[in-house]
């Protein structure tokens, strides 16, 4: 029973991750599409309709923040982030897997701390309003804690993911 549960845990986690990734990718698509529309509108309203819209620039900035941080989370899942691997590849020493695991824990810890600190900053700074949208900047800044939490989540998932199967391979197989 306990053995079953031990095996079930990772696969549940990975199933949850798959749902999360689907949402993330859909969100990225929507944000990029709306950015395209917003910026086109901005240019068109300035040069074609001769009636400049004041909210386009602010909305584009909010969209870009979410694009960057959710994009970073998807990048973390696909292991596409920049890695300096020369040391770990060339140098051999006892306890190397332990060091690798310590690095993983450090990365997750770093992003969790970043998520917490940025959540606090978002709350503290929420009194600032964006003049044209007439809403709090917290809507933009919230991208940071959300993105960092998602990155931490994907790194945790990478621990239980089968070692050999890269995401690309998994996706090809699915």
């Amino acid at each position, binding site marked *: 029973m306990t053995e079953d549960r031990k095996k079930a845990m990772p696969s549940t986690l990975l199933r949850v991750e798959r749902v999360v990734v689907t949402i993330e990718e859909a969100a990225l698509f929507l944000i990029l599409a709306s950015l395209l529309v917003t910026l086109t509108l901005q240019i068109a309203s*300035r*040069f074609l309709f*001769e*009636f*400049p819209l*004041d909210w386009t*620039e*602010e909305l584009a900035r909010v969209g870009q923040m979410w694009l960057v941080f959710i994009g970073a989370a998807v990048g973390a899942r696909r292991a596409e982030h920049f890695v300096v691997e020369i040391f770990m590849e060339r140098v051999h*020493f*006892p*306890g190397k897997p332990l060091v690798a695991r310590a690095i993983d824990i450090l990365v997750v810890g770093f992003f969790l701390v970043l998520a917490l600190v940025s959540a606090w*900053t978002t709350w*503290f*700074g929420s*009194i*600032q*309003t*964006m*003049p*044209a949208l*007439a809403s709090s900047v917290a809507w933009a800044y919230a991208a940071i804690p959300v993105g960092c939490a998602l990155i931490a989540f994907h790194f945790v998932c990478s621990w239980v993911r089968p070692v050999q199967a890269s995401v690309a391979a998994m996706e090809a197989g699915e």
Partner: protein
Amino acid sequence: MSSLLCVAAREGMSLLRHAVRVRCVNASARGYSATLMLALLAASTMLPTAALALDITASHVNPPGEPTYEAFRQMTEQLAGSDSGLRMQVYPRGQLGNEHDIIEQVRLGAITMASVSTAALSAFAPSVGVLDIPFLMRDHDRHPWVVADGPLGERVAKNVQRETGLVVIGWWSAGMRHVFTRQTPIRGPQELADLKIRVIQSQVYTDTFNGLGAKATPMPYGEVYTALATGTVDAAENDVTGYRNMQFFEQAPELSLTGHFFLFKAVIVNRRAMEKLSTEQRAVFDKTFAEATGYQRELAASLFLSDLQWLTDSARVNVTMPDRKALEVAVKPVQDVYARRFGRDFVNAIRNAR
């Protein structure tokens, strides 16, 4: 490899223990002098708390030559020359970001103080927007200071503190703002009709120019020159010193002295950072700041005249004196909206302050 590390660590520890033992023996041999030394050390760290070195960090967005930059420079020099132990480190020209970023950093305590325009501050403290109402000030060198230095200014400062936690310790000048155009000079409201004009990203600025029949286009300050050069906007508005320093006159040589806004620069500080100052240090700081305030305002007023002179003589700028009364009448509905928002009596008190 790990065993080698263990050996090294053991050796290191024993060396350290040996060193500590030696020092203990020496200390007991010269117990008297050691006690004396300790007492002196304690005294030296406890006595001069008043003159404890303390860094004050400040930030603003202005380049050298502009009143805010020069006022901070004067403060830095005077504090360095005093024996207060206060040192000022200024990050000018938007080195730490735009004014919104700077205000955030003062609130967080990352920097001690800053001088920011009320237009930017109103995104955090809406109540400060009362000072941004169009055609509120009669002139640029007396009326603003009657308001700012009196109970009216105190009331605005109290509102800002309630809304943001920031303490406003004084008010500086960013000057009267005027319109400059690429082609048509502004004589009255009729020339403003359908004019694409760049404004600060602030609601009252957009409302004012839309109210005047223009097409207000908010965009960041750094993009204004290119926008004027490419015709993205037909006009922009700024104080005369900024108009000269940013070389906007090259693209928009028609300067109309509309004086539609007087822009205050609130000097804000982080309360907790300032509480670290001793009473003596605070006194020195206040005195230095008062002198800097006088200097800043004086420089702003005199630069307006000298820059205007330079612009007409050397830059071939065409200066027009518009019908300010007609503009004020045209913008009356906007004034009324904002007077209702901030309280009619309060706005009238500011307008009629003498």
